[in-house]
């Protein structure tokens, strides 16, 4: 996949960092440039989706019952009488000044909605990736250390399940089992209804806010609600992280320095966790970054299932209401976060790997 640890791609990576300040500077500016261009590309795509594909974007806003005057007013207000490239420039300008338009369904500016919904998504995805790392890395290492054992087979199947189980289905089954049958966890939503709105938002993340306010009851209630969706998300990153960790570790364990260490009588635990594991920490960062970005995407489905008030839920609600401004705004924000996380893990990889320095 995107992780070519040994540089096996036929061409050198773009922006490959050389030695010296000048090279470092050009890498940094190149980084900003590619980031900017990618973001511009994202804007071009959302612009295309919002303004070019719909046969008549005005009709989508005013509805087919509108009179000709209303239609003309809306058309000019939306700037649709301008040529397409002018529209695009003003669209880019609007986005960079934080103007994503109004949401038809909530009646508020889209940017305001998004900043209200984002913390919930962030909280869930972060907990998910923590679960994924805490379980995925040890599982991957163990699988590699005992290659061919039953544990290795189980981890292999879990890894493939991560590619073939629909996230929304797993969420539903989890709800049916752990909430309805076993009563181990809280149901959909972030809190039980009678706790709702009791905590004054500070960060917007309920786990942190309730602790800041010293509301321990509410904190535990929030934990019982977030644990299932976060675990479902965590399963998908666990599958990917364990799979990648395993293959990185197998690469290392076949190296000669590992044999040398074993011949010298270094305990197996030390060989695995120090000699073999230390070198793979850097490529693992890229893997974790990629799966974190993937979780933000996966949260769209999970949030719908768990009625979680995050960006994904906002996006799907907007989709069903044909609220294009909100759809494109949410797409932009998720896309931008996705791009930034990808680029950061790319940079971290180059900075931390001595061979690339």
């Amino acid at each position, binding site marked *: 996949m995107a992780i070519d640890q040994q540089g096996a791609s036929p061409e050198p990576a773009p922006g490959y960092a050389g030695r010296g300040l000048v090279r470092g500077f050009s890498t940094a500016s190149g980084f900003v440039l590619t980031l900017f261009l*990618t973001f511009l590309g994202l804007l071009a795509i959302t612009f295309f989706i919002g303004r070019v*594909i719909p046969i008549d974007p005005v009709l989508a806003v005013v509805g087919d019952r509108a009179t000709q005057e209303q239609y003309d007013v809306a058309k000019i207000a939306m700037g649709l009488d301008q040529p397409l490239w002018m529209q695009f420039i003003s669209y880019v300008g609007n986005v960079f000044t934080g103007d994503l338009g109004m949401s038809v369904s909530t009646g508020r500016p889209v940017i305001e909605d998004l900043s209200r919904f984002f913390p919930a998504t962030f909280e869930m995805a972060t907990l998910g990736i923590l679960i994924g790392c805490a379980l995925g890395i040890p599982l991957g290492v163990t699988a590699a250390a005992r290659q061919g054992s039953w544990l290795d087979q189980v981890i292999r199947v879990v890894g493939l399940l991560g590619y073939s189980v*629909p996230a929304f289905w797993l969420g539903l089954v989890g709800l049916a089992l752990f909430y309805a049958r076993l009563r181990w966890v809280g149901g959909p939503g972030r809190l039980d209804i009678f706790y709702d709105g009791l905590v004054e938002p500070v960060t917007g993340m309920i786990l942190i806010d309730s602790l800041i306010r010293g509301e321990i009851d509410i904190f535990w209630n929030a934990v019982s609600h977030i644990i299932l969706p976060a675990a479902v998300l965590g399963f998908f990153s666990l599958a990917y992280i364990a799979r990648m960790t395993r293959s990185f570790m197998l690469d290392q364990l076949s190296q000669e320095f590992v044999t040398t260490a074993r011949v010298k009588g270094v305990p197996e635990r030390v060989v695995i966790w120090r000699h073999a594991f230390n070198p793979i920490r850097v490529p693992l960062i890229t893997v974790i970054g990629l799966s974190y970005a993937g979780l933000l995407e996966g949260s769209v489905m999970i949030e*719908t299932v768990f009625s979680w008030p995050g960006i994904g839920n906002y996006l799907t609600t907007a989709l069903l209401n044909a609220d294009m401004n909100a759809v494109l705004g949410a797409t932009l924000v998720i896309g931008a976060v*996705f791009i930034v996380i990808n680029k950061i893990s790319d940079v971290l990889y180059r900075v931390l790997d001595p061979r690339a320095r």
Partner: protein
Amino acid sequence: MSNRDWLLADSPTSRLQANVGRAYRVFTALMRNPLSVLGGVIILVLLLTAAFAPWIAPYSAVGQDLGNRLMPPSAAHWMGTDELGRDIFSRVVWGSQITLTIVLLVALISAPLGLLIGAIAGYFGGWVDRFLMGFTDIFLSLPKLILALAFVAALGPGINNAIIAIAITSWPAYARIARAETLTIRNAEYIQAVQLAGGGPVRLIVQHILPLCTSSMIIRVTLDMAGVILTAAGLGFLGLGAQPPLPEWGAMISRGRTFILDQWWVATMPGFAIIIVSLGFCFLGDGLRDVLDPKSEGKN
């Protein structure tokens, strides 16, 4: 000379013999890996189910029977019935046709598109390459599902638009592969020979470069099919893909969501179908990769 000797001949005397021999070698190598055999069997069952759905399904996919609504799995209804009394097993069987259609159409649209773009970029190089690959990279760096959602939102819900949206978001990976392959063979001597003989770029790309990209493309497409099935089911689940009463698996799960707490089978059963078919493509793709592209063995 036995058939087997003819198939495995070191110096085939015809193009047909060479091609059939190669296919035979790939097939035997695949048969040695139990997981890829399992994957192949699953895909075969899917194909047969889709082809013979009218004979396999005991009931109609859309016929309602309100007296028998929400019945648990039993001998008469192997997977139970849904809220309109429709037999879930029959609907899953009929749904295999929809899944297969989506998978085939997405592959038929996105793989050739990606192949062509990648081969053109790799063959011409220079600014053509930079422009096409810049475009590809932007698509690659965006979340697929979100992009597909936005496209469907603009195009309008429906199975055809879902297919288009998924295809639009899945070609970039193929373009990358085709470009990498083209770069490695662009300067080969046989390419130069064709150029000397007066072959133009179209002839070179279509007849001499694209055929060499197909094996890595087949691997990648097979591996990606699981993702395509999941995305299509996701769109169906959100109500943006196949519309009722079509028995699309994702849409069926979405209908069963309301009853998940008491009538678990309505949402659960179609999910198993999705998982099994996706796993089948994963197993087969893994096996194909090991056979056709031994370099990457152990990676991933």
